[in-house]
């Protein structure tokens, strides 16, 4: 599912982080980069192609 073919480097991630509006320390950035790359790897399990009308539940109900 991740749109990126390869995970971002720390420098690329730093540029991405600048757009989030979060005040991040150097330590935050390193930790978040590691977490984000790990998350992207796991997210490969989520299908990337869906029928255009495959509607996600806005408010999920277990009895639907």
């Amino acid at each position: 599912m991740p749109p990126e073919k390869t995970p971002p480097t720390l420098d690329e991630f730093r540029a991405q982080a600048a757009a989030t509006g979060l005040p991040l320390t150097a330590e935050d950035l390193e930790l978040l980069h590691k977490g984000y790359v790990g998350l992207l790897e796991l997210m490969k399990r989520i299908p990337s192609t869906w029928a255009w009308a495959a509607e996600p539940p806005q408010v999920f109900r277990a009895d639907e």
Partner: protein
Amino acid sequence: MTDLTTLTIAEAGALLARGALTSTALTEAFLSRIATIDGKLGSFVTLTAERARNAARQADMEISGGLYRGPLHGIPLALKDIYETEGVLTTGHSYLKADYVPAVDAETVRLLKAGGAVLLGKLATHEFANGAMTPDQPFPPARNPWNPKYQPGGSSSGSGAAIAAALCMGAMGSDTGGSIRNPAGFCGTAGIKPTYGLVSRCGIFPLSFSLDTAGPMAWTVEDNALMLEVLAGHDPNDQASAKAPKVAYGAAAHRSIKGLRIALARTWYEGGLSADMAKGMDEAVRVLRDQGATVDEVVFPDIRDYHICGRVIITTEAHAIHRQEVIETPEKFGYTTRRRFQLGAFISAEQYLSALRFRRKLTVDTRAAMRGYDLVMTANQWGPPEIFEEPQAIFHFLGKPSLTMPFNVTGQPALTVCCGYGSDGFPLAFQLAGRAFDEASVFAAGAAYERATPWRERRPTL
């Protein structure tokens, strides 16, 4: 009389109803034990002793006057500190809410009070129920009563610890990815994540709107059923609240399970459990078969699919909920909480929506795999709890997949049942999950298992 603090809710309720016990005596027994024991565990963050004494006196007057409100009347309970309580500090175990005193009770708290429960106080949690304990928070983290050098699991950490240590008869927890079942398993209590939408979340600090559930924890399955009987019901102030019919869960806990069909999700845990947990699971399967249930191995979607699906939803929604605070006052969060709440800023809308679409697919596929079966059975935890002095990894989801997450993703009710003790003395546990809104079958099987085994007779020594 036996030690009052180790009575079950069902036992104490019967004694109270026939006038053989007063709520005041029961409440004083718990307050005394808390004063003696809880310094070692840190399960309570706020004790409301005078309020509890007043509620107990009220219960005694009502019961002796012929007004019996039901199975929780006069019963001492406690609340995870993310439940808003009128006039009582509600911190979420965070400096961000260190002075917050709500004006109104959460709907579940209102229901407990209306049912005559005696609320002893507020319990430790992982900060904002995010699933990690760190020492940089306003109260010390709770410890595991089976061995205080270990963690009790979480995020309903104080709830699990307090019940196992006999500091309250039951407690409220919340479960977004396993936060009721995790401490229930590590502390050896029972605990149920009800069907998403069965219990109101109004007035409970949110972590992830799409997955948050509120539910009870208690020493026995039957006690969980009695608590849920009071808690279940439609709440128009909770957008996810369902209009489900009332069910007598306490009675369901006494149903026979002969002929019940259980799908064993062995592929989720096979090869990954500790030796003690693997043995406990095999024994639990045997006991349920001996009780007349059929247990067949069934292949469900891969556990890693549920794990990442739920994790993307939680990470994104938790960021949205706490975004303003992680921008304006990041230093007020604990070391781990802050990073977990920041991470969601990097997930795109397309990635979040794909996770939601995936959730629907996993729910449909799980339902298909369950066709012909009443329940799903699987392991509750991989092995023993973590050491107290070794905080959890910041991004814990990079380790083993969560065994509890599948039922958060599908919304099904899931119960944790203690199935013995390991060679290290820690409790072992399995999960039973039912179809949506079929908590009754879950309670029937869990209670039948408990009646057939001796595990409820052992308590931690403190």
